[in-house]
């Protein structure tokens, strides 16, 4: 190490001693309170999942899991979608009521290729469909469209939002084109919660979202430029999110569930898959 480097490092150490971080909030209380929200011990996930989660060491298993992993990250961002270039959409987040969508803003961040940016625990646990169904109180719906088959990966997060969330990941296959960034063909998210009237209004005004009917219930079809969107979290805080996944997005309701479907699919096909869910 050079003299100059030692000098710079010494200066950084000196600076560090004079730095003031914002005060650390009392996380222990908040965290402890949240541990009670969900069932005690989480069952061990299937072993491929465990492997996938070790993201630092997970490079070997990465290729195989890339599709699901990227989806994980995108969702882990707690949100949803926006898209590159021509189409795309937006949605909402984690079962929290209230979403707004705005057009414009800076382009979405590039999807990172560092391992830490991809596989992680954010989406929830990688489980079997049966396991997911055991872990949430509401019925998990799965498309019954001919040829689609079973999801390639299922994630459950029973703690956030309240009521839990389940994600189904389908790899690209005939009839399900891959997104430009991953080989995920279809991503379906289910949670309890409803968009607010505020959200609906914004969407309508902007004209980038089309109101549709899915199985007799209201839905929204998003396509167009990348979006910003805002949502209100459980604490009532208005938050702004922006992220992307290629493809279009359909958001619709089924009873007290909100469902979201993302993929490079035409509207009619998306609605067909949505309506087949049971």
């Amino acid at each position, binding site marked *: 190490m050079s003299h100059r*480097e030692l000098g*710079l*490092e*010494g*200066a*950084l*150490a*000196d*600076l560090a*001693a*004079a*730095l*003031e*971080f*914002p005060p*650390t*909030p*009392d*996380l*222990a209380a908040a*965290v*402890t309170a*949240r*541990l*009670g929200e*969900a069932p*005690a*011990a*989480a069952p*061990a*996930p299937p072993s491929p999942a*465990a492997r996938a*989660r070790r*993201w*630092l060491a997970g*490079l070997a298993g990465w290729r195989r899991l890339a599709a699901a992993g990227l989806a994980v990250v995108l969702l*882990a*961002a*707690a949100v949803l979608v926006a898209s590159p270039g021509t189409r795309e959409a937006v949605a909402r987040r984690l079962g929290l009521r209230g979403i707004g969508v705005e057009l414009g*803003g800076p382009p*979405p*961040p*590039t999807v*990172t290729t*560092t*391992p*830490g*940016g991809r596989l*992680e*625990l*954010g989406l929830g*646990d990688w489980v079997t469909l049966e396991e997911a169904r055991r872990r949430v109180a509401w019925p998990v719906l799965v498309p019954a469209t001919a040829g689609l088959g079973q999801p390639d990966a299922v994630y459950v997060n029973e*703690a*956030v939002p309240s009521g839990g969330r389940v994600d189904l990941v389908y790899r690209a296959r005939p009839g399900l084109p891959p997104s430009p960034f991953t080989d995920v063909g279809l991503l379906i998210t289910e949670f309890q919660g409803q968009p607010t009237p505020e959200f609906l209004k914004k969407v309508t005004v902007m004209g980038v979202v089309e109101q549709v009917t899915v199985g007799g219930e209201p839905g929204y079809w998003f396509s167009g430029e990348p979006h*910003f969107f805002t949502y209100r979290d459980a604490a009532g805080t208005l*938050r*702004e*999110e*922006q*992220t992307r996944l290629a493809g279009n997005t359909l958001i619709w309701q089924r009873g007290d569930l909100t469902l979201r479907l993302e993929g490079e699919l035409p509207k009619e096909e998306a609605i067909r898959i949505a309506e087949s869910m049971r």
Partner: protein
Amino acid sequence: MGETESVEGRPLDEQELVEQARGGDARAYAVLVRRYQDLAFRTAFVIAGGSADAEDAAQEGFVKAWYALPRFRAGSPFRPWLLAIVANEARNRRRSGRRRDDLALRVAEDRPSGDAAPSPEAAALAGEQRKLLLDAVGRLGENDRQVIACRYFLELSEAEMAAALGCRPGTVKSRLSRALDRLRAAMAEPGPLAAAPDARQGGDR
């Protein structure tokens, strides 16, 4: 940071606490949270760039770590594992596109200068110069800024840095060295620094 905290009056080391938490003991886990909340919050702050996001990320990270404990490899170090989870939460929030004050740290104005015999370089860097240096760090690209903050401001180990930055442990040193090079350049030429650190550091995977 709470090193003397105990459960049932007995001081516990990290491994014991982790083991108890793995067994579902929320009290033991609360001790761990208190012990590492400063570290988690500050790491999240460095990565997310704002204290509200940092608080969210740290809290979410601790909750997720609790549910992930059954997958924690017994006997392995807890801090890097925790930091990996918290840092990912922080990154996810950072990606949200919200404007933020990057590394909006403050330099204490009147730090008692009781330190005896600092190095000549450090001694020269009082007040204004600390600000200049912090400023230069702030002008670096995101990756450079984070690796420097992790090493010098958070004093993380290499394994912890790798966990927090989401890169392989083997690449931490070279990343840091490149960041220092660019910091040196930034100090030499005040003003906007050439950007695109992300592209440059894409070889870390």
